[in-house]
């Protein structure tokens, strides 16, 4: 039997104002990317609790990406500055949990960067495919 290709499941947290709009623009522009991404809309990237990220990874998500407005463009002044600091904490936690750093990514995607959204998603899927399934998925 031919082995089925690994199809990762990646959760993308997108802030309502820039990144979700960027994801929408990718759609409007018909920029294609693989169907492995599940977008969860949050008001701000700064709304994403690190526990949500770690829970998702330990429950079997193969990768997590947080997308927010570019620094300086945050709809909530500097919610994304907080996100940036949290991302550092998340990176440290990944190590503790025995997860590869590539499974988590932080990206700034503006409302006019539909092409960037599609590109980042393409890259993320490729990266995770190369890594293989999350070790937490096996159990």
């Amino acid at each position: 039997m031919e082995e089925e290709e690994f199809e990762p499941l990646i959760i993308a947290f997108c802030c309502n104002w820039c990144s979700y709009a960027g994801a929408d623009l990718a759609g409007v522009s018909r920029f294609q990317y693989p169907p492995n991404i599940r977008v969860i809309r949050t008001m701000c990237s700064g709304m994403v609790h690190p526990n949500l990220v770690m829970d998702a990874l330990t429950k079997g998500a193969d990768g997590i990406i947080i997308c927010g407005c570019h620094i300086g463009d945050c709809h909530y002044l500097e919610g994304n500055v907080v996100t940036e600091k949290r991302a550092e904490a998340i990176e440290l936690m990944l190590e503790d949990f025995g997860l590869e750093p590539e499974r988590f990514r932080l990206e700034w995607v503006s409302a006019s960067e539909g092409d960037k959204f599609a590109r980042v998603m393409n890259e993320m899927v490729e990266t995770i495919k190369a890594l293989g399934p999350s070790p937490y998925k096996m159990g």
Partner: protein
Amino acid sequence: MVDKVGAVLVVGGGIAGMQASLDLADSGYKVYLLDKSPNIGGAMSQLDKTFPTNDCAMCIMAPKLVETGRHHNIELLTGASLEAVQGSPGNFLVTIKKTARKVDETKCTGCGLCTNFCPVEVPDEYNVGLVTRKAIYVKYPQAVPAVVSIDLEHCIGCGICEGQCEAEAIIYDQEEHMMDIEVGSIVVAPGFDLFDLARKPQYGYGVYPNVLSSLELERMLSATGPHAGMVLRPSDGEVPRNIAFIQCVGSRDKQIGNTYCSSVCCMFSIKEAIIAKEHTPGLEAHIFFMDMRAYGKEFDAYYSRAEEEHGIRFTRGNRISSVEEDPVTHNLFMTYVDGADLKTEEFDIVVLSVGTEAPVDTDKLKQVLGIDLNAHSFCETNIFDPLSTSEPGIYVCGAFSSPKDIPDSVAQASGAAAMASSHISTERNKLVEIREFPPEKDISDEDSRIGAFICHCGINIGGVVDVPAVVEYAKTLPNVVYAEDNVYTCSQDTQSKIVETIKEHNLNRVIVASCTPRTHAPLFMNTIRDGGLNPYLFEMANIREHCSWVHSKEPEKATQKAKDLVRMAVAKAALLEPIPPIKISIAKSALIIGGGIAGMTAALGIADQGFDAYLVEKKDELGGMTRRIHFALSGEDVQARMNELIDKVKSNERVHVYTKAKIKDIEGFIGSFMTTLEHEGEEKQIRHGVVLVATGGIELKPDEYLYGEDPRVVTQLEYEDMLTNGGLKEGTKSVAMIQCVGSRKEERPYCSRICCTETIKNALKTKEMMPDANVYVFHRDMRTYGFRENYYREAAEKGVVFVRYYPENPPKLTVNDGKLELTAKDPFLDEEIVVSPDVVMLAVATLPNADNEDLSTFLKIPLTKDKFFLEAHMKLRPVDFATEGVFLCGLAHSPKFVEECLAQANAAVSRATTILAQEELELEATKSCVIDAKCDGCAYCVDPCPYDAITLIEYMSDGAVKKTVDVDETACKGCGVCQATCPKEGIFVRGFTLDQINAMIEAALEVT
């Protein structure tokens, strides 16, 4: 004194008429919206996509259609015509004839059963006759009102529909009738009609089957068109290999009398070429044109992408003389010029880019309303009063005053609404009903009962995702008690269906799987309110932008993903709780930033509506860039009008002018902003409800063509000053004008829009003052759109010499023996041209105000790449920002003419008035909320809050002092930084709680 009436009649239900109606209705006026067609929607309803964003036209228009159709202050008068108008401004008596629809509008549900049984087939006007419809029909699937009508010309009276109609809505003996209404003002927005292609027989339209009009191609490209979006040759149904577009058919044509430019066709063809290529693999598209008029915001970038990314071929300098056909293959042949060569090429399809004309009933409008028309039968207007007709109290917007695109029409529509309401502002709220929703059902003791509505969006979703399979899957999900699919979930009939379904199935939460919540959630949230639910008991799954459109080549995987997205939405919906509304009072005043012509006009408009206007200008006098314009193309004395305007502003007691003032800070939000000004050495605080950004633009000081080195080289405004103030030396024999200096190049890719026309103005003036002087214009495309084209023609006729240049080979200016020498290559003659001008005028770029970046930070409003402000939506919200309560107008938006600035300024007034007219405003209820039992007062959340909305407090509980935090709900914006900081899960944002997000994650990870 006549008794004024707080109602307005809007004539024409296209996008402009709808926008004017919505603004007026939202500002407290009763609106009668009249359309001769049985359904509103106008020309935009026929469009597949819109430039320059390729937004699906119906998708962006449907919410407005629905809102117009269901607005409690708008009464639709469809299938109606204007018969007589008496009275005066403030009080008109209007007589209207309503034709017999033969259908009871209150009973028809738009189910369409009757149309299935009707035996009569009639060419379908909506699809330009490419398919047929029945004699009883609804104009298009999303039509408003969603009610059928009988086409009396074709109905054979067989009675089958009457027998089939379960709602008993067919009334065969319904007769046309007259009705009278009283209104205070009238807005005319009848739109346009298309040039009759039979008048250009040399192109073979109607004779050669493969010659199409651009509207026919548009319908072909549409999912609701004849071939579900496929472009097929009418002669044999084959997929075309190549397609040619001929521009200016019925435009810029002296022979047929339409000497003006139709303004939209260049962009329209580029868009169609892009979409046709997307829909037809391997298709080659070729556009033949004279000048590419990509003059609007982001248009030139779109044009570049069409050429570079989509591989569309553009051949300029062409007015194709005729089309020949091979009678066997029905292939078409055209001869064109390419540089200095003549070529003939064969095409599978030729598209005629058809021009626009004044609406066919323009003479009747003139007769009934008494308004003046121009030489082309469009409504006559003045550049200083672009929204007024010659009759007081009667205003105009949209394509009826000159051919124009959607955003310009929408801006004019809002502007006309402001003008129409300004002289009846005392009658605001007198004739309107307050929109009432049924009482909210208490669902606190109920288990979740979710209804799921899955949208096909025509073929936008349904063409990729197996929607019925998603519906079946949704039915199996926990808490889902009802699921169905809809062709368009956003259509008006589906809204009624959702309300009924909520009641019938006792739903207490609703999900819609369709497009993006960013545009459509408000519509559905109001719908469920009509069904007695709190609007926040709603969730959306975006299976279009995030699924069918981005996985269009993987239908199975897209279907699986759509199921997953629905499952995630259902998981969250099950945990949604009602959110109580938060209401705030509104400061009835506006801050207007920028004292140029747009800002001053806006300030007066706000004052006319009965509100205070704080007008802030950084310079020591009002006037802005218009102060440097002396005369208009049409001859008006600009400075005389400016002085009048400035006097009006200064003498209006509701306008408070602060010149030489600097904005130090703007805090707050819609309804309640607080601005700190530095004025005359003092700090001053102003409280206001809205902000209007009118920061204007500046003229580029170029660093090329010897500018600044040789005094004979001047900018356009400097040259105008010379013409007016005698700066031009006696004996000037030769003037050269160079276009696109600083515009349309790599570092500044946009077109500055006004410079071509300003050049024509200056060239004509030069010729008038010095008939013997030679005037040369070196240009890339002359972009004299609309009626400005007539002046371009006049300049050419008066001997102004126009020489085209290509950007890779621009003219060269040198000094030779003390004389200026300009060398250019004429691409058509393939010859070098050398002139020795006495003066060289540079048509330089218009730059954004350098202060825009600071303001962007203060107000959290975005800029474009070019540093102009970016509006909420390029097409339908041209003067709104995504940030509520903040609006823009004039050059802050992009370069534009005086008349366009004035239209936008009035539009911004209209949009602001929809807020200022309310007594209190319901705020977005997504706010953070503390669970005192979990909060231990650690205060980790206090500092990160970007709005200082959280304070640490102490309280007594069981005799002990406890700590918790308190959230100021007017300051909180719901970003959730607190929620993500809290180690105890003690603070959360309503509608985005950790449990709700977690439920979505778990649902996403469930393997099905």
